């Protein structure tokens, strides 16, 4: 049986999730040139925020049709609050400091958030079961799609469209572009750059929260460490697509996801490559791809369209 369509779908689904998280890295980088390593944990907080709504706010047995939008909302609120708090209390005081200071702060914040959830969220010391949507799976040709994946299929493009509209058409969005191009001039033109930075953090957190709900639905669990590896992958996706570019983040995510799926599926079929083909090697191949792309296009696949500072 031809496995390619299914493997492509596997990769695209995984990649969409990377992309949703990568948007946060790329937007914050585009505007303040900070690699916000705590973003993976903001993603994780989004997942727990959504879970909290389901477990402790909604009555038992609420239909997922009603529960899901509220869970997304809860996840977004939790993630955005943490992100704004992080910006206000951890990053803003360091805005004039050497670049390594906020970077180290971000790593510290990432550990702190992990440990906070570990310590205070009930039963979060090991994986916590996430609710699932009943029904499915759906067969389209030789491709099987789960109900949990459906959410991702809808959410990723919709999120992307909302973001594109926001950045291109709204006043605040254009303000973001201006700030990314040149913060000082933007300020002189009357743009409140402090506010723009907060908006960038909040938007990134909101998309990460949507990604976290998708993660929970897809894998059936959330846990305090879920943002760590996924955050690194999403950061990789952002660099691959061209850090600073929101479309690049999504594209980079998709490319990374497909690369992981295809390398798992096919590398072992190449004669002599048998032992390099298993899933444990997928990361290696993904990073080989990253290095190749960066060799020929150091600015990433789509360059730095938003944060073009040259």
């Amino acid at each position, binding site marked *: 049986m031809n496995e390619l369509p299914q493997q492509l779908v596997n990769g695209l689904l995984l990649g969409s999730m990377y992309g949703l998280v990568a948007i946060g890295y790329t937007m914050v980088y585009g505007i303040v040139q900070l*690699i916000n390593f705590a973003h993976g944990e903001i993603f994780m907080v989004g997942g727990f925020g959504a879970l909290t709504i389901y477990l402790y706010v909604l009555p038992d047995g609420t239909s997922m049709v009603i529960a899901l939008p509220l869970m997304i909302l809860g996840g977004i609120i939790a993630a955005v609050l943490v992100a704004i708090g992080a910006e206000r209390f951890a990053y803003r005081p360091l805005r004039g400091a050497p670049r390594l200071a906020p970077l180290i702060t971000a790593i510290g914040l990432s550990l702190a958030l992990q440990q906070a959830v570990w310590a205070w969220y009930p039963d979060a010391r*090991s994986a916590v079961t996430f609710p699932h949507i009943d029904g499915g799976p759906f067969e389209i040709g030789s491709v099987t799609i789960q109900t949990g994946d459906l959410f991702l299929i809808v959410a990723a493009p919709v999120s992307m469209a909302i973001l594109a509209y926001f950045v291109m058409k709204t006043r605040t969005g254009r303000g973001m572009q201006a700030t990314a191009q040149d913060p000082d001039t933007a300020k002189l033109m009357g743009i409140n750059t402090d506010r723009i930075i907060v908006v960038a953090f909040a938007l990134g957190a909101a998309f990460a929260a949507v990604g976290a709900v998708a993660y929970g639905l897809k894998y059936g669990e959330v846990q305090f460490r879920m943002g760590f590896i996924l955050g690194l992958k999403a950061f990789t996706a952002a660099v691959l697509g061209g850090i600073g570019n929101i479309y690049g983040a999504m594209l980079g995510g998709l490319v990374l996801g497909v690369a992981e799926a295809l390398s798992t599926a096919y590398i072992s079929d190449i004669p002599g490559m048998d032992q390099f083909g298993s899933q444990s090697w997928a990361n290696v191949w993904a990073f080989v791809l990253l290095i190749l792309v960066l060799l020929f296009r150091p600015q990433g696949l789509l360059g730095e369209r938003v944060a073009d500072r040259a």
Partner: protein
Amino acid sequence: MPGKGLIVRQRSLIAITAALAAGALTLTACGSRDENGGGSDTSGGTTVVIGVDAPLTGDLSAMGLGIKNSADLAAKTANEEKYVEGISFEIEALDDQGQPSAGQQNATKFVADDDVLGVVGPLNSSVGESMQKVFDDAKLVQVSPANTGPGLTQGPKWQTEKVRTYKSYFRTATTDAIQGPFAAQYIYNKAKKTKVFVIDDKKTYGAGLAATFTDEFKKLGGDVVGTEHIDPDTKDFSAVATKVKNSGADVVYYGGEYPQAGPLSKQIKASGAKIPLIGGDGIYDPTFIELAGNDGTGDLATSVGAPVEDLPSAKDFVADYKAAGYKEEYSAYGGYSYDSAWAIIEAVKKVVEDNDGKLPDDAREQVTAAMQNVSFDGVTGKVSFDEFGDTTNKQLTVYSVKNGEWAPVESGTYTG
């Protein structure tokens, strides 16, 4: 306008960041340490500390906390019964997070504390490997309730020539050399499955189990239609699941632990392959069922010994554990942990009694020597050790997921 220099600096910042990211990848879990050990009664006489090393935080904490609590129960029971005259036992538990590096640090910490006369743990075979030499150098006895890697007792070349490397290492769990083949025989002879897809997580435990399983399965005449090694840090096994589906396998063997096995089982079933997954004692945990979801029904696991609930010898343990009011379940290794701690208590008792009721100066060395001849009726049956430090109890059980619980299917003794 920022000048050219700034851009160059930014690029190098990305380089630094990437290096940091790569470093962080190797660090993974960063759980805080749970120093809160047993806190048992210390009144009267000498206090002997039994160290416990297990993952108390992170993915594997369900099993780790069961180990800690069960060892604690053994110490408390010995104190209540005044089992060793003039000696009271205390537990000190350290968290290894399932990481060999953390385990080795903990081992050093135990060695430095003169009151520690024995250590129960660890859970993971790979952690066990990192601790053995530290303990052996200090002649501090270690009894693992859960390590199943054959090399730990029988040397790296255990398949051809068995050599005991560390005299201070003992275990109450049976090895993968027995568990893998036991699973193969069950699948081939009883469950009548002939086409297997073998997956492991590349860790000492998982890869070892998968290898011994594969050997026996092939010997019996079965067909290995595919192999795959997963990355235990991820949760997305969809690509692997698709491979399994297209391989035409009728059963999946997984060498690894439940945090990955649960999602793996779920995703294999989701891909459309409605075939059971079977694993070793590392997946025999209630959390597996939670993670695997409804489709996990029919999945199988082998585990060491007979089901603790069914053993007459374990009735007291189960009741006492409940009465002690521990927050966590005793989990897969509870009975073995109790027996491991009790073996240390027995060895200490022997040493103290031979020395007119006092601890000798070279207590550690003597306890280690006494351990070799320890023999008692424990929670899991008769507890004693062979010339390699392995348990003489070779019983194993196949469990299957039924109605959201692990139900014993069949117990047996592997004879080889």
